[in-house]
């Protein structure tokens, strides 16, 4: 589900950044108020945990293995806000250190996996488990259902994000610039894989881990209450969590239900604003796009093919030459400077 760089337009990534920044700030504030100074180590080690369990291979029927994401599991044990921070950090490390998922698309990946996934998962879990005893069957059933819903909601969002690209960003003659699949292909493809394979795996893994914790160390299932009780700080009122759930209800369906036309309308209108972010201005580019990249290659203009080819080769020589020369000069300059310092 990690969207790499290049599949989404820069303006899409920037607009997700604009959505995510206030959410991150809210999450940081909430978790810090709740955990006080315990916040730093718990979030750090929680993120490391999230990263590590993504590496575990789980045997699935049919003889192969697959990875679980574990976002739903974390939401059950840590609550959605803390999970958001842990998953964001795990994603940052994956993007920066292991090249898994893009650097610009980090914002969109966080929206799907750090915001939508844990909140939907936690919502499902709370809805089913309610205030039952920690050992109750409803706890693990709720965790499984929540994890299933969460991962599918995230997949749906990813599908919508990818599917909007060819609608919003293409050349004048319809060549898509980023992800080439429209909503009608991207959404079913993402959803099918997650409804049938990844979702059930996530649900089973979450249920089994919750059952393990129920039978061996039930306190760990309620680390939120545990930390709140042991911290000398003012007790956390559950009202805040209900507010969080309220925000969940308002926020998550925005990305969920508003696929298709609503998102398209929003995008077209928003596109005007987004264009300002791109130095060269995508709109002007779209307007000035007079011919297809391969336009000259069309059959009758065989001569124009050769003239175009020669221009291309000349451009290549001049372009590569200039840039390589500049880079080389810089390198010499840097070496000279570092020698001068020693």
């Amino acid at each position, binding site marked *: 589900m990690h969207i*790499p*760089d*290049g*599949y989404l337009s*820069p303006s899409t*990534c920037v607009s997700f950044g604009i959505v995510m920044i206030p959410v991150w700030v809210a999450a*940081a504030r909430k978790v810090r108020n709740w955990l006080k*100074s*315990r916040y*730093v*180590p*718990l979030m*750090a080690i*929680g993120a*490391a*945990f999230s*990263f*590590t369990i993504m*590496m*575990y291979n*789980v*045997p*699935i029927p049919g003889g192969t*293995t697959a990875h679980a994401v574990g976002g739903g599991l974390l939401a059950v044990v840590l609550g959605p806000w803390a999970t958001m*921070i842990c998953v964001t*950090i795990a994603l940052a490390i994956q*993007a*920066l250190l*292991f090249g898994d998922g*893009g*650097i610009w698309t980090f914002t969109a990946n966080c929206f799907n996996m750090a915001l939508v996934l844990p909140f939907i998962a936690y919502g499902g879990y709370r809805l089913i488990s309610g205030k039952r005893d920690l050992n109750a069957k409803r706890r693990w059933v709720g965790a499984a259902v929540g994890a299933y819903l969460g991962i599918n909601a995230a997949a749906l969002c990813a599908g919508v994000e990818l599917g909007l690209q060819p609608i919003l960003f293409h*050349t004048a003659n*319809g*060549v898509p610039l980023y992800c*080439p699949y429209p909503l*009608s292909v991207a959404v079913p493809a993402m959803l099918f894989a997650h409804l049938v394979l990844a979702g059930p795996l996530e649900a089973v893994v979450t249920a*089994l881990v919750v059952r*393990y914790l129920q039978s*061996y*160390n039930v306190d*760990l299932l309620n680390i939120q209450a545990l930390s709140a009780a042991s911290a000398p700080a003012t007790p956390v009122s559950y009202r805040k969590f209900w507010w969080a759930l309220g925000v969940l209800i308002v926020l998550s369906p925005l990305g969920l239900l508003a696929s298709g036309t609503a998102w398209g309308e929003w995008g077209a209108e928003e596109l005007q604003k987004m264009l300002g972010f791109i*130095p060269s201005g995508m709109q002007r580019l779209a307007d*000035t*796009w*007079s011919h*297809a990249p*391969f336009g000259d290659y069309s059959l009758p203009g065989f001569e124009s093919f050769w003239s175009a080819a020669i221009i291309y080769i000349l*451009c290549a020589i001049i*372009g*590569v030459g*200039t*840039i*390589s020369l*500049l*880079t*080389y000069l*810089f*390198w010499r300059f840097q070496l000279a400077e*570092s020698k001068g*310092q020693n």
Partner: protein
Amino acid sequence: MAGMRSVPSWLQEKIPPPAPQAAARRSSRRGFLEKTLHAITEALKNEIFSESLASRPGLLQGLDPRAKLVTILFLIGIAGVLHHIFSLVLLNLWLFWLAKSSRIPIGTFAKRVWVVVPLFTGIVVFPTLFNVVRPGTPLLVLFHLSLPVKLGYWTIPHEVAITKEGVTAAVLLILRVGASVSLAVLLTLTTRWNTLLKALSVLRIPPVFLTVLEMTYRYIFLLLHTSSDMFMARRSRLVGRANPREERRFVTSAMGNLWGKTAALSEEVHGAMLSRGYAGLPKSLLRFEMKRSDWVWMVLVFIIAILFVGGDRVLG
């Protein structure tokens, strides 16, 4: 591979093959234990390899990490705005040249970018080549059907062909993803992780997040080690093949167990931090200094970016 020399030999060893009778039955699947162990070893090996490259003298290594981070982020954005195949090819060639000037073994670089990207992105974009998925101008007609076939939502036209638009879109995407991945690889291979983290502060990321990131990085290796021990212990006690049900139970129990350890560890670390006088934010000994060459580099990248975007516009 010259770059592998500094990776300890024990890390380069492949996991020993299973016993002969097991190998005979193994068919195409490798056990989940071996797979997990292999993934963990790969992560550790990769990290040591990057550290060794980051300490070599080279163009990108010599830059202030903040200048490097900002320019590379900027260039990934530029890769996102280029719309012409030709300018993306040029950008990729330049990135090769940057890798070479930064003493990154070209084989490693090419393998990381140009084997992985065409493989994965190529599979993703493959269907878009055909007019079955997206209608377009036919470039190469594959075969003719007597009539258009309707399969529910889909309509297969009577002339199945690879389209010009499909090929262009696929090549564009592969080149763009390739350039973005190259830039990310250049950044991570030439910068030590803790330096990179400190450099993130230039993006106005709150210091608390950076502290958490830094601690996460350390504990990832501890937890990977713990996991590796758990899986190795299991593997060494395993005779024959356990049924998948039991294996699933083992993996999920390992996760639950690891969560217990994680929670306990975070309590201990918190206590240790408090007892050492932690009052909110740690102090860092790392200081950055922008040299003249760093400013020149930023201006240079800006000029190159203008050249690329301008050239892209002229071509398009």
